[in-house]
């Protein structure tokens, strides 16, 4: 297919990219050692997004494909965001105007007590 966008791609040095990915992995594992919870989370998930981007761009060649493939993938993520936005107000709440989720509240309570005891 001469109109195949990936017919004659120039392959980059994939091993170099792999090294970057492994370094990022090591950094993200070291995160919990810092002891600063928010920093650890930001590092862990931030690095996850960076790694995912690197794999998508360099290994899957998404940037070389026709543009609409990127739009399709982004649209999937947007709809998942919509799912989250529509469901979270219900699933993440343990109390409403006229109702209370006793079991969930108790679990959270006893959990926070147990972790307070730990520290």
């Amino acid at each position, binding site marked *: *297919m001469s*109109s*195949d*966008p*990936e017919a004659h*791609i120039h*392959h980059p040095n*994939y*091993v170099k*990219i*792999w090294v970057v*990915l*492994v370094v990022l*992995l090591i950094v*993200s*594992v070291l*995160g*919990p050692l810092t002891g600063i919870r928010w920093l*650890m*989370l930001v590092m*862990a*998930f931030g*690095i*996850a997004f960076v*790694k*995912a981007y690197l*794999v*998508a761009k*360099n*290994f*899957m060649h998404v940037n070389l*494909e*026709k543009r609409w*493939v990127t739009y*399709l*993938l982004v649209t*999937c*993520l947007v*709809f*998942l965001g919509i*799912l*989250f936005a529509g*469901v*979270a107000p219900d*699933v*993440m*709440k*343990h109390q409403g105007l006229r109702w209370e989720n006793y079991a*969930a509240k108790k*679990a*959270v309570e*006893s*959990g*926070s007590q*147990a*972790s307070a005891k730990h520290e």
Partner: protein
Amino acid sequence: MSSRSIANIRSVTGIPTARLVTWWIIASEIFIFGGLLVSYVMHRLAHPEWAIAAANTNTKAGAFNTFVLLTSSLFAVLAHQAADAENGKKAAKFLRLTSLGGAIFLIVKGFEWTHEIKEGFVLSSGGFWSFYYTVAGLHGLHVLAGLIIMLIIASDAAKNRDLPRVQCIGLYWHFVDIIWIFLFPLLYIAK
């Protein structure tokens, strides 16, 4: 004589049919994993006490498995490069190395889970563990399925047959890798 339908050979969009199908499969899988992960994230945010259960996951095993999958992804894209150069034998070799990575991943997971089950953490041990086994289990099934398909494609590629499929199974494998890239912090680091 090709057993392919004319429809299969045409390519009005410019993207070869097999690759086009792979992208649509990946899109639908994003929704399946996405639904599960969205459900997990909501629950996890609303139940900070799950951190106590989560403390029992084996971060070392998770990190090692992440390394294994990343490396297997490297082999998968090197297989693609070889297939592009019409070197079927080399592509098959790299695909088999990728499958080996998948197998190691599953074996490590087997040990991991065996240990956790022995400790008494099973599917019904509570919210965190239910999600943990379900999500990682679904992912593991996809690793297994991908591994098997990859070996089949490798044996064809070794005979220089159907080389474009090497890229397609590679795409699927990278997707499975990306899911794990997010599972790792979700299940092992966010404690």
